[in-house]
């Protein structure tokens, strides 16, 4: 009897599995699905631990057209799930009715209104974060040590991402707008190895860096070297890099999905107070690894043969070529190193925060600010400049709203170009 019950239970589970997934897939199904919107509202209780998540029941959401006319409304069920059908594809605005939220559950200001657009036969996933982790706000100056600490970490990560971009620019003259995708790719590759294949991050990360280096070298061999040999102008090559960035970012979006994801390892750690700052153990590891990598880059450039050759080409490519340096070989090395470092930077960023398909593209802006500040094309300038930019972005939270902290990077960029266009460590060229 017990056996029979077990058997039935197994069948139930087996049958339940596919059914459940079929149900979940139905809204995004193509032919008869129509357009809709779907969301799961969960109170995260200010933590990342899934254990204490509480679904929000009976929360009302009203969907209006962009003109403000109500289309449809509904409430969440016991599991916090809401599913609404929409009459046609187009642009809508979802509004969470704040007065229907349970006591003590809040939203960030403005987060209750969410505009979105729905493609034909598509279901929009309404992703609203409730009760996200918030830091108790103390007086502004008290936050300074914490922000400086975060700034050191962020600055080092940007520096690692940007140093490859700057050396590539120095040796080939190309401003590579697809460098951000190298950064994302590193983190995404590590994520697949770590989460999909269950390889521990300590092993997955070096593998992903190798993949990143190989990708960098391959793009040079397949694309950039050929363009250089054909004498394609740098202007044209920049536009090619933009096309590559657009294509690669969207490929990453298909492969990786739209959501932000975290690694399996080192994800949740408990913070400790160290004097005025609060930090989790991985913060120190990130800083340590980043410093180690940057020292490695600097000593490679300074003392090894290939590093010296790299600097020689950055200084004067024609002179370097005529003194017997194989420029193509060195540039290939630079691309491999740049790809590997970008991957490392992406992984470090993803360990500290999370990774999304456009993480690298967002960082690209900051890398540009960093390498311009340091001096376009110089390796050490990129390090110094990126570090300053990372520090500025984090500490600027004292003065400006956090959501606008990246804006400060652009202001710095423009000011630097006005006052010292060659950057901190750049050499003045004959200009204008």
């Amino acid at each position, binding site marked *: 009897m017990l056996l029979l019950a077990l058997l039935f239970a197994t069948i139930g589970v087996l049958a339940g599995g596919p059914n459940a997934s079929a149900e979940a897939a139905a809204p995004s199904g193509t032919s008869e699905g129509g357009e809709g919107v779907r969301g799961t509202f969960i109170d995260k209780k200010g933590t990342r631990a899934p254990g204490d998540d509480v679904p929000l029941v009976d929360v009302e959401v009203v969907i209006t057209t*962009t003109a403000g006319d109500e289309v449809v409304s509904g409430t969440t069920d016991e599991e916090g799930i809401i599913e609404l059908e929409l009459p046609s594809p187009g642009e809508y605005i979802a509004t969470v009715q704040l007065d229907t939220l349970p006591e003590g559950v809040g939203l960030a200001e403005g987060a209750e209104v969410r505009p979105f657009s729905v*493609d034909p036969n598509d279901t929009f996933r309404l992703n609203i974060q409730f009760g996200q982790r918030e830091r108790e706000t103390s007086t502004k100056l008290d936050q300074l040590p914490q922000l400086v600490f975060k700034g050191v970490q962020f600055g080092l990560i940007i520096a690692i991402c940007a140093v490859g971009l700057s050396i590539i620019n120095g040796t080939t003259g190309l401003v590579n*707008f697809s460098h951000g995708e190298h950064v994302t790719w590193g983190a995404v590759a590590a994520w697949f190895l770590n989460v999909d294949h269950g390889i521990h991050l300590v092993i997955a990360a070096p593998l992903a860096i190798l993949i990143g280096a190989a990708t960098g070298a391959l793009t040079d061999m397949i694309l950039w070297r050929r363009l250089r040999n054909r004498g394609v102008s740098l202007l044209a090559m920049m536009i*090619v890099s933009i*096309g590559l960035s657009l294509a690669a970012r969207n490929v990453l979006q298909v492969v990786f999905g739209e959501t932000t994801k975290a690694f399996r390892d080192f994800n949740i750690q408990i913070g400790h107070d160290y004097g005025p700052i609060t930090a989790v153990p991985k913060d120190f590891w990130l800083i340590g690894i980043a410093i180690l990598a940057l020292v490695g880059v600097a000593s490679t450039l300074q003392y090894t043969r290939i590093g010296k050759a790299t600097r020689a080409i950055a200084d004067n490519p024609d002179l370097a070529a005529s003194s017997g340096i194989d420029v193509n070989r060195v540039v290939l090395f630079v691309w491999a190193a740049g790809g590997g470092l970008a991957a490392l930077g992406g992984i470090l960023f993803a360990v500290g925060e999370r990774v999304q398909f456009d993480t690298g593209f967002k960082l690209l802006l900051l890398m540009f600010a960093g390498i311009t500040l340091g001096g376009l094309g110089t390796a050490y300038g990129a390090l110094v400049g990126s570090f300053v930019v990372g520090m500025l972005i984090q500490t600027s939270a004292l003065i400006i709203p956090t959501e606008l902290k990246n804006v400060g990077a*652009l202001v710095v960029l423009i000011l630097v170009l006005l006052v010292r*266009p060659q950057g901190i460590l750049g050499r003045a060229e004959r200009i204008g």
Partner: protein
Amino acid sequence: MDWRLIFDTALTQGFGPQAIVVALAAIGLNVQFGYAGLLNFGQVAFLAVGAYSIAMGVDTFGLNFWLCVFLALLSAVVLALLLGFPTLRLRTDYLAIVTIAAGEIIRLVLRAGSYRGTTGGAAGIQNFADDFFEINPFPRGSNGIGFVDYSSSDLWVMTVGWGLVAASCLMIFLLIRSPWGRVVKAIREDEDAVRSLGKNVYLYKMQALILGGVIGAVGGMIFAIDRQSIVPDSLGTQRTFFAYTALILGGSGRVGGPVVGAIVFTFLTAFTDTTLRELVENNILDKIPLLPSDLLVANEVGIAVQILVGLGLMALMIFRPQGIFGDKREVAISARR
């Protein structure tokens, strides 16, 4: 497969308001990149300035619609001055970096919750162009010509829009034939040579940047007016590069290039988009052997089109930089710059 639907959609969009927006953005880029050799990677910033000047002017500040049109043009000039002042004395990659950053930054500021009262935040601003549609001479209802079918408001936007496209093209045609145009084209070929002739290169570049930016802002106005709605996230960086693809497709450095390019580009993207959707809906991809069954699902069609645009831009730039009917000499940009 409903081929009729696919062609109808593609044709309708190819001449519709969205093509006008791409065309105006690309005409602006043609002045900057095609003629002056300036790499503006933030045309979307000018679109944003045009769109939001009207939206915020009417909705937030209650100004007259036509006054806002004037303010939009003025704001575009100011933005061009801001971006050009620090960068135009430097190599053109600095302009590229600063403009791509400016485009993103403007979007981030516009969608920031902190200024929601002024900018509408991420929800944007709606219903601000009633004054424009009030003087619509076309009768209500849809108006079909052959395959294509437009609503009366679409027709009104298209009449004004294509009129503006024609006017900008005429202006550029005359400008480029003038001494001013010859200096600008000479700057693209060899900046130092022009400088040695005693011309103020910086000033000419600035004028080209302003002119292209203002035309881009006009495109932004059409973008906002057409839908009577503007949302910051519709102004992502990719919009700049759609315009670049259209420009290079049609032929940069030619007056009609960006217009033809915009029509062909919009037609092709709409065609691809609808075809892929039809393929997915009718499960045709599943019947082809060797293809993975989940190769493409409905909500990935938009992404797939962007991938194709990116690859198309690369391929164009590498194999046919002069586009459909450009002149190869016009796009030959000197090697190491």
